[in-house]
């Protein structure tokens, strides 16, 4: 067993020179490691991405490759450097990741999440907005919101998200430094007093699904206060932000009336969060074509995807383009696939694959699949 491990490790080392890096901490990575793969620890992975966060196709790959590894790419490094250099007394900076379908926006976001986790940020991560607004099974449980008039609530989704939040921020919540500033009365018999730890608020939201969305509202205002008072630094990551501004959702009220995103309480909460009236935090958003319906997928640029309202809402922001693979990144990815036994065949085929996939990461993965 030991000998096999040694053999394994030695093989890895000899091959790891070309496409792997042993630098597993995102905060320590620099330009030398662009195009190289680093492995994320399994526990960290489960904690961060237990309830989504990584694309489904990528999850399948993790299972096949028996490891989760991300490629270090230029957009992620740029943002990390910017974050390191920000002045946290100024209002939050919003970064917008955009790119073609399959360019790697969600995985870049995952990379940044890993960095945030290591650096001890409080993570607010929405894995995929369309999940709430557009992935509607036969009947989506909706209820009319008790606090906000005329708006619709998604209690189950809210509760699921709170669970996700809890898991991501286990460490910070266990420390118990974060306390809520005011009292919340949910009903005659339920209330969360002032000064109670954040964890309690979240627990309440998870157990009492009915109040989940209100809990989210409360949570967000608490987070803003805490950040402003420098008790914690916050990292907000929302994948598929443009779905909030698309005119339609797939939800419909029992009266068969279509619901717009503005009528959903969750939208409102996250709009609150993404306003830049608070300090000591970072907001990263993605604009994804797959979040909207096929007819409106003409362009991948943020101005087109966000519509006027969204653009005005997050203006000013820093757009970051996530592009296709460069030469070096492509070769490194191909070597990685070979190592993981995903790609076989003679070396010349890489040229063909490069041309056929046009260096799009997702397309490349798809093309390698049957080979």
């Amino acid at each position, binding site marked *: 067993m030991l000998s096999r491990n040694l053999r394994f490790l030695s093989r890895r080392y000899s091959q790891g020179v070309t496409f792997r890096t042993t630098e597993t901490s995102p905060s320590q990575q620099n330009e030398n490691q662009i195009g190289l793969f680093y492995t994320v620890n399994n526990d960290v992975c489960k904690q961060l991405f237990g309830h989504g966060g990584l694309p489904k196709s990528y999850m399948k790959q993790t299972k096949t490759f028996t490891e989760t590894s991300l490629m270090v790419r230029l957009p992620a490094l740029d943002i990390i450097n910017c974050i390191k250099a920000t002045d946290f007394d100024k209002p939050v900076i919003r970064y917008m990741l955009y790119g073609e379908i399959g360019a790697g926006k969600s995985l870049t976001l995952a990379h940044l999440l890993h960095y945030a986790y290591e650096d001890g940020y409080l993570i607010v991560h929405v894995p995929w907005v369309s999940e709430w607004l557009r992935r509607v099974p036969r009947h989506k449980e909706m209820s009319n919101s008790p606090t906000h008039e005329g708006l619709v609530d998604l209690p189950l989704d809210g509760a699921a998200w709170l669970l996700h939040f809890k898991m991501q921020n286990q460490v910070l919540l266990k420390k118990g430094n974060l306390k809520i500033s005011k009292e919340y009365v949910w009903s005659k018999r339920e209330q969360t007093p002032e000064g109670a730890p954040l964890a309690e608020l979240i627990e309440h939201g998870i157990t009492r699904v009915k109040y989940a969305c209100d809990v989210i509202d409360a949570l967000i205002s608490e987070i803003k206060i805490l950040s402003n008072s420098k008790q914690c630094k916050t990292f907000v990551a929302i994948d598929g932000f443009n779905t909030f501004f698309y005119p339609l959702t797939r939800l419909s009220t029992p009266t068969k009336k279509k619901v717009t995103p503005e009528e959903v309480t969750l939208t409102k909460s996250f709009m609150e969060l993404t306003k830049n009236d608070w300090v000591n935090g970072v907001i990263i958003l993605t604009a994804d074509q797959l979040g909207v319906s096929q007819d409106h997928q003409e362009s991948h640029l943020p101005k087109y995807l966000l519509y006027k309202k969204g653009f005005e809402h997050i203006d000013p922001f820093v757009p970051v383009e996530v592009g296709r693979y460069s030469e070096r990144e492509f070769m490194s990815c191909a070597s990685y696939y070979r190592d993981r036994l995903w790609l076989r065949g003679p070396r010349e085929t890489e040229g063909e694959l490069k*041309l056929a996939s046009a260096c799009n990461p997702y397309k490349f993965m798809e093309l390698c699949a049957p080979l």
Partner: protein
Amino acid sequence: MFLCYNKMSFAIKLTLKQALPIASRSSIILQNVYNYSSKATSQDNFYNNFTDWETLSKKKKVSKAMRAYLERAKEHDEFMKKQQFEYNIGKRHLANMMGEDPETFTQKDVDRAVEYLFPSGIYDRAARPLMKPPEEVFPARKAAEFDEAGWPHHFLFYTGKPNFFKLLYDITENIQDLYKYGDKVIRKKEVTDEKLLLNITGSVWLTKDQLEQLLVETVTDLEYDNFKLAMDRLVSLPHSHIYKDFIEKFRKPLATQRFALEIPKPSYDENGNAFVTTYECLRKKARGDVTIKSPGTGKITINGQDLTYFEDTQSREQVIFPLIFTGMQDKVDIVCNIEGGGPSGQSGAIRWGIAWGLRSFVDKDMLEAMQLAGLLTRDHRRRERKKPGQPGARKKPTWKRR
């Protein structure tokens, strides 16, 4: 002559009229008859003449078929002469109309003139106005197949297609000869020279229509297949080079090596980079043009977009195919404009365009390899039209036995 005629009995007159060929009522024959009727007895003349009864009896039996044939032949000859005359006059008129010299007016000039004076939008070339020498326009007819008495000249006349069956007979004869020759060679243990072997690549057998033209007879499909089989058998024998001329008569050489002629020289743009443009890239309904720039990096631009213009893998593979085949994937840049058709048609058109343009940048061996791979063949296939009475182009309504 006139006097003799009057003296003859009526019966003889009749037989004379029947017997004698129309064109040749010469005095010599009449003199013979005269000799007969006046009981010529001179010894020398006797042996010069045929036995007169036999001659008469022979000449009597001009068969009806012969007579009919003679009439038809005469008509045809007159007709052809008239046509030839008209054709020549017409040619001179045309030359005058076009303002050119009538003496040196060739057939090509005639065609050009007709196309200019009578422009036609009809697609079928056979239906457009044409002016050609009457031998080409009117089908050939056979010469006299039987002589005056009705005896056929050809020994296979009664098969109905003497020329065709003579051909098959020749082939079989040649095959038998080659067998004997082969046996002789083996007995003598001679070694055949390799260079004499027949090379039939680059040519095909004549088509049925061409064979019909050559033999001046109709040939059915079955007979044509038989002919091809027999010729193939002949060619496959080891010493078939002996009958090379015979075989060459029935082989048509294919139009080849077109891909190697007229390779365009690359033009140079401002920076001194070489580029070649291929216009008229067609496949199904797609039309476009492809520009290949020589010192390049493997960038492909289609209608302003990247290779992502095609979403499906198959089209992309088709576009890349010629580049990978020649190994020029990172040595050239490609810019194309395409419209019409669907993804398959457009990618096929681009593939041909790239291959055709790469001819200027590739050496001779690779050129031959490309031709062998079929990359340089223009794909002329189009969608077959639906026919009336059928649901589709080939699909027929349900077949009912009764």
